[in-house]
């Protein structure tokens, strides 16, 4: 199945893109999608312990199962204000 991946701030810079579509196995979770991404962009691995994620514009747990067509956003630690 295909999911749309969005990256923000330093994650976006490290990967060199803000948005991509990737084929992940059926039943993949947000965590699986992240690991898929780290294999492609190893420098993202530094963020494995402190990345947050959102699925379809809602905060989500890494264990959330994905569906075909989902949009998953990976968020580095935030610094608004």
């Amino acid at each position, binding site marked *: 199945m295909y999911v749309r991946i969005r990256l923000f701030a330093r994650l976006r810079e490290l990967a060199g893109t803000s948005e991509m579509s990737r084929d992940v196995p059926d039943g993949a979770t947000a965590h699986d999608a992240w690991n898929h991404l780290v294999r492609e962009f190893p420098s993202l691995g530094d963020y494995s312990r402190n990345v947050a994620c959102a699925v379809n*514009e809602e905060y989500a747990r890494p264990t959330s199962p994905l569906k075909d067509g989902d949009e998953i956003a990976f968020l580095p630690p935030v610094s608004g204000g």
Partner: protein
Amino acid sequence: MMARQSSFVVTSGALDVAAVTASGARATDGAVATFVGLVRDHNAGRRVLWLDYEAFAPLALKAFEQIAGEAADRWPGARLAIHHRTGRVAIGEASVAIAAASPHRADAFAVCRYAIERVKQIAPIWKHEHFVGGDVWIEGAIADPSDDAARRVALERACT
């Protein structure tokens, strides 16, 4: 009559603090407390030139709504407006404006403080600091809206 501005905004335009302040208040309110965050010219020993703010806007708006809901649960009758900038923000300009309206001033102050603490914890917004000699992404909290420990920290800061 001025159009009523929406309570939660993420914008690349300059923040209108007066409009943020006016957006929340009703006849039953006795107080509006406001907080305006400014871009300052120094940080961690660096001479800051400007900040570029990036946001995941639709999720940021939901985070603002959640913060307002949490505040209304804790301080009945309180309402919030939260406006945040994106893009390049110059030294001295407002990056965030918060207005907390309540029947009573003590609650208005507490809600305003609570809101900025929660914005820093859970709003998907990032500062890219440009300083003399380089640039750096500022990274603070891991955003987790369901983290009760973080919420308690914000409550303690609001109530002391």
